[in-house]
């Protein structure tokens, strides 16, 4: 229960940092669309072309960058939390909360865009779609989209592991001193 509360509070704090939050949601949205579209065109991951793999590499780099940005931007918060008694595992929840939430929001944005795009195409070209009902499919399938988001979340682990060692390894008062 305490961890879930910390996750909710982390989400709340993330959304109050509007600039950082919206910037990374937009970047993640673009990257998820790119990766999903590449995978959709290829059909399977084994046939995915170089664009898909470049997108994977970019997503790992972006997740490392984002984890670094969060720990840098929130370093005083993190150091203060450690000073008032937060343990490393609890600070991890705070950092993870923001990263996971950004990924979830980007996922929902992409899902909404695809749903509306599919609906618009079906509505405008109803007769055409009606004749092709057996062959009609959305631009990006839900399965591929979900798979890509899971890959994204796994890529975050790399970023988190690298970025928060800088803060969590330090004793609280030293973290506070270093961050000032």
């Amino acid at each position, binding site marked *: *229960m*305490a961890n879930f*509360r*910390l996750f909710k*509070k982390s989400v709340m*704090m993330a959304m*109050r*940092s509007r600039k950082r939050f919206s910037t990374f949601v937009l970047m993640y949205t673009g990257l998820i669309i790119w990766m999903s579209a590449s995978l959709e065109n290829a059909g399977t991951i084994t046939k995915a072309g170089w664009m898909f793999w470049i997108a994977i590499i970019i997503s790992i780099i972006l997740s490392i960058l984002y984890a670094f940005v969060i720990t840098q931007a929130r370093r*005083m*918060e993190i150091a*203060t*939390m*450690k*000073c*008032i*008694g*937060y*343990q*490393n595992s*609890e600070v991890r929840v705070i950092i993870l909360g923001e990263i996971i939430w950004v990924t979830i929001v980007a996922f929902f944005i992409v899902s909404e865009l695809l749903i509306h795009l599919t609906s618009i195409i079906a509505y405008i070209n109803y007769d055409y779609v009606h004749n092709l009902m057996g062959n009609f499919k959305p631009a990006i399938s839900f399965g591929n989209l979900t798979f890509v988001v899971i890959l994204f979340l796994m890529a975050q682990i790399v970023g988190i592991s690298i970025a928060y060692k800088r803060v969590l390894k330090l*004793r*609280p*008062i*030293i973290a*506070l001193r270093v961050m*000032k």
Partner: protein
Amino acid sequence: MKEVMIKCTNVNKEFRLRGNIIRALVDINLEIYTGEFIFIQGPTGCGKTTLLNVMSGLDVPDEGSIILDGEDIARASEDRLGAIRRQKVGFVFQDFNLIENLTGIENVEALLWPTVLRSKEIEDRAIQALRAVDMLERKDHFPRDMSGGERQRIGIARAIVHQPRVLFADEPTGNLDPAAAKMVFDLLKTLNKEMGTTMIVVTHDASLTKYGDRTIKMDRGRIVA
């Protein structure tokens, strides 16, 4: 017979700075009793903040033992020190160290978020703490909308919300004007009397020590009086 809250025995601490060894604490031996209001006073660089940090578990000594409320914290793990700070210790910082993205009441509640307390109980305790420091009407404001004195009162509320056994304050009025400083010390004295919390305050200003029961004077890492 008074109960010993903190006992330091042969505490030493050094720092390395640009190849030089700085002996911040030298053979510190002292006892602080429950309910006392103690000042640690001395010139800049004498080691008073370092002493405060090791007594509160924010830092660890290189040698010696520190018994805080019956537990040796000098050799405790980082996680155990965090638990002790959450349960028994309150800390008031000179720079307030409030979280800017949280309102006044959220800053106070933050200390209790990782606990198993229900949200309603956390809120009630935070309101109680804010009432004690006369900041209830500002509970929904962010630190950026507060004066220095108001921020420090929020900091004090955060430090007492979990009813600590001992409260440490590192130059709590260092960034405040004289009127706000007096208000903060009157508040600390009231909390000491009403809650029985042991208070340990670091200051370089000898004129403030009249608020305390006892003053420990330091110079060059040693207790001199």
